[in-house]
């Protein structure tokens, strides 16, 4: 973890309501897939706290991008940045995805704004000789992000949309039916993560989930971002009931989390 002043090199809108900002980033900003940064820009009263974002693409060693959906004041301000503007980034933060020790066939599930951390994961899995099946979902075809970029890495990509306007109509997890995979990695809305957890527990298939939680600090000092654990850490008694998403997570093994 360190604070970085990043210069924006490009900003675009890959889908309605989404923004991708690319930055010039020193090589030292090395981040593992699933790790995140706390970003802030501007000084609007509503953006006093920084906001958490997974890193998305690293197309050159000195580039880093973030992909996000505009939801409120924080993302509105970040989404308004243009090339030449600066943003403040704290990171890399948290505990990312675990890569398998030997090559596997892995399914990566990304729902909506959950896609960003999967780009780096797909890249690293493929580099390690694994096969990657990337399942990407969105409300409609127009809202799909990241599919082409992940396909370009060499992953097999399948799509699902709520309205059937691209790929299969229905739940992203339905795309798993009939697939033979050794591991699941998922990031997306909570209902989707619950479903992945069920599948993982039901099939005894190892799964990692990248979680979100409202955060204040992002580096472990505020205790704001907790998620309930299935098994409290015994030596800490009741205290162990909650884990920090920013420090023990954001990536957890599916069986660790109580939704």
């Amino acid at each position, binding site marked *: 973890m360190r604070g970085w002043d990043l210069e924006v090199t490009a900003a675009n809108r890959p889908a309605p309501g989404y923004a991708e900002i690319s930055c010039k980033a020193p090589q030292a900003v090395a981040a593992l897939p699933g790790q995140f940064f706390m970003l802030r820009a501007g000084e609007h009263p509503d953006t006093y*706290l920084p906001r958490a974002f997974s890193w998305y693409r690293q197309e050159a060693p000195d580039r880093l991008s973030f992909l996000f959906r505009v939801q409120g004041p924080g993302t509105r301000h970040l989404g308004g940045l243009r090339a030449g503007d600066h943003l403040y980034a704290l990171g890399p933060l948290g505990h990312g995805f675990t890569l398998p020790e030997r090559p596997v066939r892995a399914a990566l599930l990304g729902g909506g704004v959950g896609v960003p951390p999967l780009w780096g994961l797909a890249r690293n899995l493929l580099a390690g000789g694994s096969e990657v099946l990337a399942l990407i979902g969105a409300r409609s075809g127009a809202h799909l992000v990241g599919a082409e970029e992940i396909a370009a890495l060499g992953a097999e990509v399948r799509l699902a949309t709520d309205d059937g306007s691209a790929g299969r109509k229905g739940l992203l997890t339905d795309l798993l039916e009939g697939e033979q995979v050794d591991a699941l990695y998922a990031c997306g809305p909570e209902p989707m993560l619950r479903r992945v957890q069920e599948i993982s527990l039901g099939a005894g298939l190892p799964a990692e989930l990248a979680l979100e939680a409202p955060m*204040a600090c992002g580096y472990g000092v505020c205790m704001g971002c907790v998620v309930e654990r299935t098994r409290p850490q015994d030596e800490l008694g009741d205290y162990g*009931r909650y884990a920090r998403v920013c420090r023990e997570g954001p990536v957890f093994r599916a069986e660790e989390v109580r939704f």
Partner: protein
Amino acid sequence: MDLRVAFAGLTLKNPLLTASGTFGYGREAAEIYDLGILGGVMVKGVSREPWPGNPPARVARAPGGMLNAIGLQNPGLKHFVEVDLPFLRRYQTAVVVNVVGHDQQGFVDVVQGVTGQEGVAAIELNISCPNVADGLLFSQDPASARRLVQAARAATGLPLIVKISPNVTDPVALGQACKEAGADALSAINTLLGMAIDTARRRPVLGNRTGGLSGPAVKPIGLRIVYDLAAQVGLPVIGMGGIETGLDALEYIMAGARAVAVGTAVFRDPYAPPRIVRELGEELQSHGFENATQAWAAANPAAREAAS
């Protein structure tokens, strides 16, 4: 610039501490700078048994600050003494133990438990947390605050600081009761009870419904309460609430604070504490002071009141 301050049996290398609950037990910040830069660390509230805290969501944005409803999640006295305190002992900084409890005995047991432990510089009784059901019990009634402070006083020879709630009609009466019961100093302010509404989900954002407001938004309230406590109670005060810069710290010192603490600002900028120490030195210099105590004396309301 001589930044040392001494009051209430405490000697600090500079007047900047980190506020309780916004710095954990120092472990995370120690990854990015030497905690020895700080005047002191006020640790996250410690209870006799481990406390789980409140259900999420625990934080929400607020204009010029934030709301929190952590509910004092902490690993308890034993863990603090065996794990966190030894870690903090490695740094040349004053450790102030923030103490919480569900009842008087809960407070006293922790006070006793940390008294005599090496490396504890002072105790801060947190009788002003708005995020647990009984957190404001002792603040809302000066008489019960008096009893609690008396009991804590009997249990320790360490400097005893009581943290004052801004959610009361008369913080001065509360401070007065604490003074009479044997407190050595006061700290102020804790967070202000607030709420955020999620209109899409038609309900409060926070799991606990209400939360504590902190950050720059509350600075004027903190300054007012510190000013009143310093001028009217006459105990040394550690000022906090919205401090982000050296100038903010100087404002608190001129309002009557002997030392100050930075809280929420470390969420926005983890490097804020060492930066504020540096800026405070610069501000003191550019305002024509030779040390921190001079600034306090030049404007402190008690001295000013007496002189006018």
